[in-house]
């Protein structure tokens, strides 16, 4: 057992308030919750990969970071104009 597993579990627990934020409130409250969830998930992937000693899976965190960026922009644009 290394430090990375408890840290990963703590980040999974941190996803609960992110989920509450994303499921409640107005559309824009939910978008803020979604973006926060994406940021937490990106780091969770890295910590899980290191905890399981699978360094190759750290790339999931990189991919999640980029996708969070793109997804956040797409949602913001759609909410601005069409939804």
């Amino acid at each position, binding site marked *: 057992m290394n*430090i*990375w597993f408890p*840290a990963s579990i*703590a*980040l999974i*627990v*941190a*996803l*609960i*308030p*992110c989920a*509450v*934020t994303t499921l409640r*409130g*107005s*559309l*824009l*409250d939910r*978008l*803020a*919750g979604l*973006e*926060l969830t994406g*940021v*937490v998930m*990106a*780091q969770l992937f*890295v*910590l899980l*990969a*290191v905890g399981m000693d699978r*360094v190759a899976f*750290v*790339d999931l*965190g*990189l991919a999640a*970071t*980029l996708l*969070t*960026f793109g997804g*956040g*922009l797409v949602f*913001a*644009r759609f*909410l*601005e*104009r069409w939804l």
Partner: protein
Amino acid sequence: MSILVGALVGIGVLLILFSCIGAMVMRDPYQRLHYIAPPASIAPFFFAIALFVGESDRAAGWKMFLVFILLNATNGVVTHATARAMRIRSGKPIGDLTAEERA
């Protein structure tokens, strides 16, 4: 060394936990946006340092550092775009204050 790694990871985790709770508690979407900044800009830095110090394989540390740079670079853009979308949806002018906001 393990104490240092534990401290760095603990700081990063606590930062993220408190930011998530703060975002949940806030009532205004503009205020919630502020709580995205610490997990995006500070926590990955602590994780990257912990990985460099604690792990013999430096690849994970460099990748986490890259995550830190990407999150730092993109978070401001996304937050600005989201706040702009909020402003437009509220019907208020962009780039200028209303009379109520000026008072």
